[in-house]
């Protein structure tokens, strides 16, 4: 399989790039300064098909694939993040959910005008008192003839002033508080009154509004999907944006998983009973900073493991179903700037790992972006774990966040995405072909680069690095390794080699090579070699001699 961009994808990317350079770049600074919404720009984008890049042609789109759409967003956002947001909301938050959840009639009616860019789409969920807790929204849809009468107010609605199609969320069941009483509706511009333009601190070329809905009547054919399923639609839609990051973080976990499955397969193929070795397997996870996402990651991982071991591999021993894992806090989240702040980052990451049920934990030292840790920094890293273990009480309950609507949702979503990844890997022929084809390496490189780009564009705030920068930082005292140590270590190895029984060492190495050339268990000859004082370097050289070395094809 070829992971290069396909010719059509490159073509669309080039088209978007040229457009961005000619039509956006020269004006971006001015638009931002003047808070100017470039309405005409979107008509021009529509002429190129880029207001419906990944919408099928039968619905008025360009019929390209999803990656092409992402490439378009990247190019637009690079020139002006505000333009990127406008197109992203229009497409990901309105057009695509209509395609995904609409009836045939709804798709044919509502999607083409959006895909052709005749008007913009707006996603109307948030309310003054229902922001991050969207399930608490108050906009009401009450039975009215054969439809509903909708009344309420929404705020922070991107594109609203120029929108012809609103995906709007309202409570259809007044007796059911929370997410379950909410339904999704498709509204036109004349159902809605725009009351205010939001003053923003950035993304000034996009437009954000308050809107009111004053008893607008809508017929049954305006209900998207089923009654009470609005929250599901809203969350699925928001995934499109936020799960990108989760998928990246999880991508690595998934790779680990698949490698583990490969191990299990290999052991089973050798005739071992799964219950004889599965309880001894353990995983190594990395804890990043997106708190709930991290907790959900571990919960999803445990659930997948249990299901796979029980149902796919037929493990009978409940201990085989338990996923044991070690967690290390994320090195990449450590900053060299204001390094003490890393203590807080590490504490939050460690807490997420504990709440997610880790069995073993490594907290990074706060000075590790600068050097190997000092005694003091390492002690503080240990103290961080001890505070969590002994003072916070979070360890007293297993899975204390189980049942939280948000975490359960995230866990389900990450689990779903993980299985999606498994399918992709299976299509490549399994883990080893996927490694050989650079699948994981590319996923990781892409995710890292995207993360870095977000930091540099300040779309992702890193305290002390791209925001709240301190100019007059005092240098931190760091650990210095005595260069003499290297000489001493070399001396020790030499002395050991001189003292050992040379013939025995030689024989052990020869035996190791013989075993490596065949397919017998390598552990006994490795242990024998160690007992004969063969060094690790000598053993590795012997194995390299037999097997050669893996040369990666660099992907970046």
């Amino acid at each position, binding site marked *: 399989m070829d992971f290069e961009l396909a010719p059509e994808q490159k073509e669309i990317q080039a088209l978007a790039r040229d457009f961005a350079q000619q039509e956006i770049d020269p004006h971006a600074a001015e638009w931002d300064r003047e808070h100017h919404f470039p309405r005409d720009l979107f008509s021009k984008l529509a002429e190129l098909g880029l207001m419906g890049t990944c919408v099928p042609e039968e619905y008025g789109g360009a019929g390209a694939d999803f990656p092409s759409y992402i490439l378009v967003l990247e190019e637009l956002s690079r020139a002006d993040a505000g333009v990127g947001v406008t197109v992203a909301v229009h497409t990901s938050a309105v057009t695509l959910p209509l395609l995904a959840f609409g009836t045939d009639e709804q798709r044919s009616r509502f999607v083409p005008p959006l895909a052709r860019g005749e008007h913009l789409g707006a996603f109307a969920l948030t309310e003054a008192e229902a922001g991050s807790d969207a399930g608490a929204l108050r906009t009401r849809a009450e039975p009215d003839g054969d439809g509903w009468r909708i009344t309420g107010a929404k705020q922070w609605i991107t594109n609203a002033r120029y929108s012809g199609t609103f995906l709007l969320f309202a409570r259809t069941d007044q007796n059911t508080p929370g997410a379950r009483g909410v339904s999704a509706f498709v509204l036109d511009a004349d159902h809605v009154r725009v009351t205010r333009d939001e003053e923003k601190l950035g993304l000034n070329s996009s437009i954000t509004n308050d809107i009111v809905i004053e008893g607008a009547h809508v017929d049954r054919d305006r209900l998207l999907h089923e009654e009470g399923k609005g929250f599901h639609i809203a969350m699925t839609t928001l995934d499109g944006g936020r799960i990108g990051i989760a998928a990246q973080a999880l991508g690595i976990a998934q790779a680990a998983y698949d490698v583990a499955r490969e191990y299990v397969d290999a052991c089973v193929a050798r005739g071992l009973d799964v219950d004889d070795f599965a309880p001894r397997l353990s995983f190594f996870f990395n804890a990043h900073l997106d708190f709930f996402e991290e907790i959900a990651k571990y919960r999803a991982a445990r659930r997948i493991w249990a299901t796979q071991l029980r149902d796919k591999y037929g493990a009978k021993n409940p201990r085989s179903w338990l996923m044991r894992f070690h967690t290390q806090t994320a090195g990449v989240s450590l900053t060299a700037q204001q390094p003490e702040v890393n203590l807080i980052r590490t504490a939050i990451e460690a807490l997420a790992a504990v709440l997610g049920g880790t069995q073993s934990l490594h907290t990074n030292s706060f000075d590790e972006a600068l050097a190997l840790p000092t005694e003091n920094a390492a002690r503080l890293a240990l103290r961080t774990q001890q505070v969590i273990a002994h003072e916070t009480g979070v360890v007293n309950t297993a899975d204390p966040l189980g049942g939280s609507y948000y975490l359960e949702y995230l866990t389900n979503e990450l689990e779903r995405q993980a299985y999606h990844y498994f399918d992709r890997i299976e299509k490549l022929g399994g883990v080893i072909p996927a490694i050989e084809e650079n699948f994981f390496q590319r996923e990781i490189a892409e995710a890292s680069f995207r993360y870095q780009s977000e930091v540099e564009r300040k779309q992702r705030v890193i305290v002390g690095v791209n925001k709240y920068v301190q100019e007059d930082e005092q240098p931190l005292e760091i650990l210095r390794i005595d260069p003499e140590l290297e000489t001493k270590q070399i001396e020790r190895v030499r002395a050991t080699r001189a003292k050992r029984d040379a013939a025995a060492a030689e024989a052990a190495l020869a035996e190791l090579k013989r075993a490596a050339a065949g397919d017998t268990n390598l552990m006994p000859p490795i242990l024998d070699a160690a007992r004969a004082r063969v060094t690790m370097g000598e053993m590795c050289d012997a194995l390299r001699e037999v097997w050669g070395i893996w040369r990666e094809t660099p992907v*970046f």
Partner: protein
Amino acid sequence: MAKKIRVVIAKPGLDGHDRGAKIIARALRDAGMEVIYTGLHQTPEQIVETAIQEDADAVGISILSGAHMTLVPRILDLLRENGVDDVLVVVGGTIPDDDADDLRKLGVAAVFGPGAPTGEIVDFLTGAVPA
């Protein structure tokens, strides 16, 4: 069109952290440079050989293991021994300020630590490599 700047991004020693090296490689490529990434676990000899064979304008060495004061001087010496005096050597990674000063004295053109924006590195190379 101006000649493309050719850069070798190198990972010497046993340090397996190449996330940063790959990000830099991609950023330089996106900025229009020819980038050759050596892969992990290279010896100083291999890096110098790659630099010569690839006719590199610059070598970017990424080290997060703490072994920079051993590995970088060795690479500089080998370049000199091979009569290479027109290759810019740049170092990135977890390099303490004092060591960065010492490395610059030894002939390293620039040292970029954690948090350095990729744009800064692109600008530096564009400015420092003769057109």
